[in-house]
């Protein structure tokens, strides 16, 4: 029977954080062989990593599948852009403001949606998010600027900035106390936020609160008879999760200070569900792997075309090469969704625990080749 590490050593927390920070900060180096080492994409990895980590705190720990998390991403983006417009181009206030506004929004949505569990909760979150999306296009146009999207203009008040400097001729750019947030500085800022977000997630996973959330997932009725009021526990998990999404949304706005309602659409909500399940719901790093994989597919794999394929398969004899390229080409380029869909199906069917379960099985095979069959699911952590 599988054993579960009930008490991870405290020192190991430091070690995990050190390894994680090193891995994130050296991403420009080790992503280079994959052709993904440019700041825009690396930044996306970090931002969607945060989104997925936050989603996992709700879905992975409590089992409540929110299908409307993109609403918080969108709210975070809008709030951040408003912070740029009203106060300052400094990204720090924007990020804080975006996170706070999204968290408040999560209080409202959570209060309503958490009255139901299971599929009804998913439907409620989906409906509320779609409602927000449609409202952003219609009645909320004064706040969201409708279809055009919210963007910076020359006439924005920017109260704090204008106390110190005069209006320039062009649009100002986002900065962190003068350091411009484009290119690598932008990535490193997001990377540091990701490391902090991961640390928070790690602490929650290993706290009594996290244990209680996992117990809710395991048997919610029993939690009531154990003396816990599950509703506030769930609401706090939902708020934290929404706050993480808002944080990710505000980070999306720092490189490109405009926000549109399409960020709140249900496809974006679905994407984070895919990321989390692909990587492994309820595990610490799984959602990050899932986010990275999907963003990689979306940006790199989708750029492959026939000539790239011909290069890759150039070692084959001419006739065979054409056949192979013909067979493979529907799966790359614009067909990347097809590959992703197939991959998702394979994982859900054969590795319900996602990539992390795959890695665990592999490591068990390597460590004890004879005991490789004992692959019942473990209590998820790590």
């Amino acid at each position, binding site marked *: 029977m599988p*054993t*579960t590490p009930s008490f991870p050593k*405290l020192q190991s927390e430091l070690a995990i954080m050190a390894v994680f920070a090193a891995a994130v900060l050296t991403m420009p180096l080790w992503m280079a062989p994959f052709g993904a080492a440019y700041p825009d994409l690396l930044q996306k990895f970090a931002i969607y990593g945060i989104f997925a980590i936050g989603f996992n705190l709700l879905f992975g720990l409590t089992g409540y599948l929110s299908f409307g998390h993109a609403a918080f991403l969108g709210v975070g983006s809008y709030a951040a852009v408003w912070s740029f417009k009203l106060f300052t181009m400094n990204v720090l206030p924007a990020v804080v403001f975006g996170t706070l506004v999204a968290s408040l929004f999560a209080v409202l949505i959570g209060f309503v949606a958490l009255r139901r569990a299971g599929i009804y909760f998913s439907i409620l979150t989906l409906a509320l998010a779609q409602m927000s999306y449609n409202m952003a296009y219609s009645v909320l146009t004064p706040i969201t600027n409708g279809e055009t999207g919210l963007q910076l203009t020359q006439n924005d008040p920017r109260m704090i900035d204008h106390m110190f400097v005069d209006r320039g001729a062009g649009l100002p750019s986002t900065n962190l106390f003068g350091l411009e947030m484009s290119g690598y500085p932008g990535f490193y800022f997001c990377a540091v936020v990701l490391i902090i977000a991961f640390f928070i997630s790690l602490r929650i996973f290993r706290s*009594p609160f*996290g244990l209680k959330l996992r117990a809710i997932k395991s048997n919610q009725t029993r*939690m009531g008879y154990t*003396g816990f009021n599950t509703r506030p526990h769930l609401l*706090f998990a939902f708020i934290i999760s929404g706050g993480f999404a808002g944080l990710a949304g505000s980070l999306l706005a720092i490189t490109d200070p405009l926000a549109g309602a399409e960020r709140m659409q249900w496809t974006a909500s679905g994407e984070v569900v895919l990321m989390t399940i692909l990587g492994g719901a309820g595990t610490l790093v799984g959602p990050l792997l899932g986010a990275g994989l999907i963003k990689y597919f979306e940006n790199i794999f989708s750029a492959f075309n026939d000539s790239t394929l011909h290069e890759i398969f150039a070692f084959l004899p001419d006739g065979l090469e054409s056949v192979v390229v013909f067979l493979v080409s529907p799966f790359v380029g614009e067909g990347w969704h097809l590959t992703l869909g197939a991959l998702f199906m394979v994982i859900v069917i054969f590795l319900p625990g996602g990539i992390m379960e795959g890695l665990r099985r592999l490591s068990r095979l390597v460590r004890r080749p004879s005991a490789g069959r004992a692959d019942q699911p473990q209590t998820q952590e790590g």
Partner: protein
Amino acid sequence: MSTQTAPATSAATSAAPAIAHSASGAPLVLNVTDVEKNFGGLKALNNINLQIEEGKTHAIIGPNGAGKSTLLNVCIGRIPPDRGVVEFDGVPLTGMAPHEINQIGVVRVFQTPEIFPDLSLLHNVMIPALSKREGAFRFNPFRSLAREHEIRDDAEHVLADMNLLEKKDLEAGNLSRGDKRRLELAMGLVQRPRLLLLDEPTAGMSRHDTNRTIDLLKRIKERGMTKVIIEHDMHVVFSLADHITVLAQGTIIAEGTPDQVRGNPKVQEAYLGGAHL
């Protein structure tokens, strides 16, 4: 033992009237007065009066369909009675949420084991221990579980009592049925409840496991916890109970010490000669 009070219930507890006493003078933990419950036309419970004294083990027996489970559900506030009152320590339980009832010190052990199948045994027992310490809700996401030494020691101690300590890191869902029931008992005991309600604690157990459970429950008895046991198995009842209430068709047909009940002709009819077996 002090009464555990959650924030939500502290007001109710402090306003509690003086605790009733039984005829013999012992303080009453649970006081059921004139309870009646109908399901459609069926009288599931009729004029039930039950006084459960502090520190006693009280068994409720009766043939199938006698209303034992309904009575237990009324006692924990899960089913509101049509008439009558159920009071715990002078506080009416009607209308309270399950977690509130747990927080004032009433713990129920279910007939089918209710555990957290995805968590380790140790965590299964630590959760009720946390609930005892924290009340119904505490937001502590940055505390480290690894530093909860007291909670952990407490949980390990109770697991050791149940002979489950060597399995503490296993996933609870993988346990045998008997082990699951003992785990659930551990989850109840770690809270040191004032009143423990056991719903057929040995149903479906082998004779060997049954005897082990009886020994265990006897040991708890020595610690002075008040218990109500619903049970089919007469061997279990007569080994444990101080006081027995016999239900048949929703009414109490006999009450008394094990010896009194054993000799009661009405009981013998209900169990042996009656048509309601």
